[in-house]
C-alpha cells in the first residue's frame, strides 16, 4: 500500500535521510523506531509531502507521490497525524474533525449531514471528544488533543495513516489509552505507519517493524524477532 524506495531528503544542505526504504502492506501496523535524530519524523514528513526528497521514490497504492504538494497527497488517500498533534486550536473539536474529511465533503452546504456517520464512528471510538465537541480544541488536554489528531486523520477514510509520536509528552496512563485505541484500529484493519519513541510499546502493537539509525534502516523484522535481537535490546528496549 505504501512503499518507500531508497529515499534521500533533508533540510537545506543537511541530508537527514540517506537511502531509507520501507513498505507498509495493506491492513498492517508497521512501527518505525530508533533514537532521536535518526530521521523518523523526517521520513514521515517526506512521505506526506512536507519535504521534497532529493532522490528516491514513494508509492502510495502503486502511484508515485514524491514531489507532490501535501494537499495533493492527502487527496490521494494519505492521512498524517503529525508530531505535536497540530490541532486547529481556535476551532471547535467538531470543526477539526469535519476538516479532517475536507477532501470528501461538500465545501459549502450539507457537509454536516454527509459527515454525520463518520462523526458517530469517531465519537464512539473517543467518547471524550463527543463530550467536548463544541469546545475550542486549543483548550483540550494533551491526551485529548492526541485523540483529536487521530480522529481527524481517520475522518478522511484514508488508505494509509501516518501516526507520529502519539505518546509524546503524555502521562503513562494516557499513553496506555492511546495504545488501546491503536490496538482497536488494528482490529478494524487499518493500514498504519507508526513512529514511536517508546520502542517497547510500538513493538507490542506492530505487525512489522523497522529500526532507523542515522537516516537508514538498520534492522527490520517482525517484533518477536526484534525483541530477541541483542542490538535492539541493548539500544532501545533496555532492562
Amino acid at each position, binding site marked *: 500500500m505504501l512503499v518507500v524506495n531508497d529515499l534521500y531528503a533533508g533540510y537545506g544542505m543537511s541530508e537527514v535521510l540517506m537511502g531509507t526504504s520501507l513498505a507498509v502492506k495493506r491492513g498492517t501496523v508497521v512501527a518505525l523506531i530508533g533514537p532521536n535524530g535518526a530521521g523518523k519524523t523526517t521520513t514521515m514528513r517526506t512521505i*506526506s*509531502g*512536507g519535504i521534497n526528497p532529493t532522490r528516491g521514490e514513494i508509492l502510495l497504492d502503486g502511484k508515485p507521490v514524491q514531489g507532490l*504538494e*501535501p*494537499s495533493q497527497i*492527502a*487527496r490521494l488517500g494519505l*492521512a*498524517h497525524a*503529525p508530531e505535536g498533534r*497540530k*490541532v*486547529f*486550536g*481556535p*476551532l471547535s473539536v467538531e*470543526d477539526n474533525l*469535519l*476538516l*479532517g474529511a*475536507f*477532501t470528501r*465533503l*461538500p*465545501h*459549502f*452546504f450539507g*457537509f454536516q449531514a454527509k459527515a454525520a456517520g463518520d462523526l458517530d464512528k469517531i465519537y464512539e471510538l473517543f467518547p471524550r471528544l463527543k463530550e467536548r465537541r463544541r469546545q*475550542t480544541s*486549543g*483548550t*483540550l*488536554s*494533551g491526551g485529548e488533543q492526541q485523540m483529536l489528531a487521530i480522529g*481527524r486523520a481517520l475522518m*478522511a477514510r484514508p488508505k494509509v495513516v501516518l501516526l507520529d509520536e502519539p505518546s509524546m*509528552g503524555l502521562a503513562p496512563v494516557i499513553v496506555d489509552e492511546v495504545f488501546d485505541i491503536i490496538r482497536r484500529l488494528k482490529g478494524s484493519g487499518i493500514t498504519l505507519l507508526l513512529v514511536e519513541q517508546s520502542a517497547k510499546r510500538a513493538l507490542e502493537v506492530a505487525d512489522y517493524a523497522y529500526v532507523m539509525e542515522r537516516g537508514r534502516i538498520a534492522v527490520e523484522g517482525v517484533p518477536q524477532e526484534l525483541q530477541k535481537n541483542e542490538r535492539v535490546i541493548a539500544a532501545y528496549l533496555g532492562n
Partner: protein
Amino acid sequence: MNQAVIQLMVSGALMGLVYALVAYGFQLTYATSKSINFGQGELVMLSAFFSLTLTNLGLPYYLMIPGGLLFGVVAGLFVERAGVRLALEQKSEGWILMTIILGLFGVSAAENIWGRDDRPFPTPIPTEPMQFFDISITPLEISVAIGVVMIMVIIELFKRKTLLGKAFEAVSADRDAAELMGISATRTIMLSYGLSGLVAALAGILVSPITTVGPTMASALVLKAFSVAVVAGLESGFGVVIVGLFLGSLESLTSFYVGSGWREAPGLVLLILALAVRPTGIFGKAVIRKV
C-alpha cells in the same frame, strides 16, 4: 445632546461604515496568511474608476456593480500572485513592500488613464434627504449602510457556516496541518485575496457617489481604514463595524467643532493610543495556547 450633534454623528457614522468595510478587507487576508494588502486603498480607487468607466460606456447601474466587483476580485488575485505569494512561500515579509509598490503603481496608472481630477460618480439612488426623527438621511447614505452590512454578513456566514470558511481558519491556525487535511493553503490564500478585492471594489462603488472619484481618494481612505483595523484588532468583523461607526462620528464632530483641518486627527490619535495601550486591538483575541 442636541439635534446638530446627532445629525453630525449619524452622517459621520455612515462614512465610518466605509472605513470598516475597507478594514474588513485587511482582516480577510490576514485571517488566512497573516499578510495584508497595503495597496487596499488604491484597489478601492481603481475599482471605482473602472466602475465609472463602465457607467460612462452606458452600462446601467445594476449591471455596472457586478462588473466593478469582478474587477476587484481580479485585481485582488493579481496582488496575491504578483506581490504576496512568493514572499509567503519564502516566509519573508517582502509582501509589505510589494503591496505598497503595487499600490503606488496603481495610483500612477490611474493618473495616466483617468487623469488627476476628482470626478463625480453618477448614481440612480436619490440624494434628497429624508427625515427620520428630525435627522436627515439621504437614500444614498442608507444604500451605503445596507451594502456594507450585507456583504459583511454574507462573508461572515460563509466563514462560519461553510466548510471552506472553516478551512480559512484552519489555514490561519496551522498552515502545514491544513495541508495535511488536503486543504491547499495557496488556494485558500488566493480566495481570501479575491474576496478582499471584492470588498474593496464594493467600498469604492458605495462611497464614490458621496466623495467623488480621484487618484487621491486612496490614501485618505486607507489611513482611516488602517486605524479602524488596528484599533478593532485584525480578527473581529463585528469589531471593525463598531470602531468604524465610532471613528466616523468622532471625525465628523471634530471637523465641525474644531475645524475641518483637524478631520484626520481622531483616526491618527486612536491609532497611536491603540498601539501604545492595546496592540492586539480592542476586539483582538489574546492567544490561548495549551500544550
